[in-house]
């Protein structure tokens, strides 16, 4: 239970941090000083990186906090614009994004990457970043399709074209890669400058 709480707090804050960072760059186009340049921002959707990392490393303990962050994140940052009724079905579409990651992780397991028999409870060794990269690729593709399909089914007012699905896929992929690249730069610099101890020295 203690582990679950620790994981939930970490997941919630990490997701909100990536969402907040993405939201800042997405709303304020710093280069051209244009406000609400929304669609270009979603080409690098940083929170997908948080979703993938948290599900891969904290496994299914992370799911409740991740979903809570998904549905509360937009409202907490800009309630007037993104209140709970912003787009009908967006809360359920978020489930699609999370399911996309779960499916990707299970696909990796099913492909016999892990030793022994297949099990939903068996963790994958994501210390090998190549598995993580596979999850990012698969989940970006699935997330784009699932999330938009759910939105279209639930919300009659929205019609989503193929380019929007493609933008979601590219945005999720680039966002996740960006988060991992930034974390890599930050943590390796912190290890090099002795701000944190290298895990290899433990």
């Amino acid at each position, binding site marked *: 239970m203690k*582990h679950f709480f620790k994981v939930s707090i*970490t997941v919630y804050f990490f997701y909100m941090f990536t969402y907040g960072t993405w939201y800042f760059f997405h709303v304020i186009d710093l280069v051209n000083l244009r406000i609400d340049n929304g669609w270009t921002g979603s080409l690098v959707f940083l929170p997908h990186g948080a979703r993938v990392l948290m599900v891969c490393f*904290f496994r299914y303990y992370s799911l409740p906090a991740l979903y809570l962050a998904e549905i509360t994140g937009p409202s907490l940052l800009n309630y007037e614009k993104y209140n709970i009724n912003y787009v009908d079905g967006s809360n359920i579409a978020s489930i699609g994004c999370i399911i996309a990651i779960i499916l990707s992780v299970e696909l990796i397991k099913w492909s016999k990457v892990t030793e022994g028999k297949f099990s939903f409870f068996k963790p994958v060794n994501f210390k090998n*970043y190549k598995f993580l990269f596979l999850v990012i690729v698969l989940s970006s593709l699935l997330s784009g399709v699932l999330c938009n399909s759910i939105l279209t089914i639930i919300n009659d007012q929205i019609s989503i074209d193929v380019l929007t699905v493609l933008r979601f896929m590219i945005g999720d992929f680039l966002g996740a890669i960006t988060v991992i690249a930034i974390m*890599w730069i930050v*943590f390796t610099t912190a290890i*090099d400058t002795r701000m944190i101890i290298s895990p290899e020295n433990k």
Partner: protein
Amino acid sequence: MSIYRDDLIDILKMLMNIEKDLNLVCYSDTQKKIYYTIALKISKTGSCNISDVIQNSGLSRSTVYKTIKKFELDNIVKLDQSKSDKREFNLSFVTT
């Protein structure tokens, strides 16, 4: 060790594996420590010699000598004989 800490360490290991596989940094942790010791000493006092590195890093004389030799071969660090003590060598970074 708690599962939570293990999971966080796994994230760090994953990030370090990227660095190793891409072969972006060809120096070990010990070598990096010596490099940062030299940099820190130079930034604080303006000069650094081999004895300072041995004293501040806490590493053995042979490790420090071997590493500095490697840095010299890689054209990162330059060795100049000290004017006050002929047995001592001052270290400085090569700037191109």
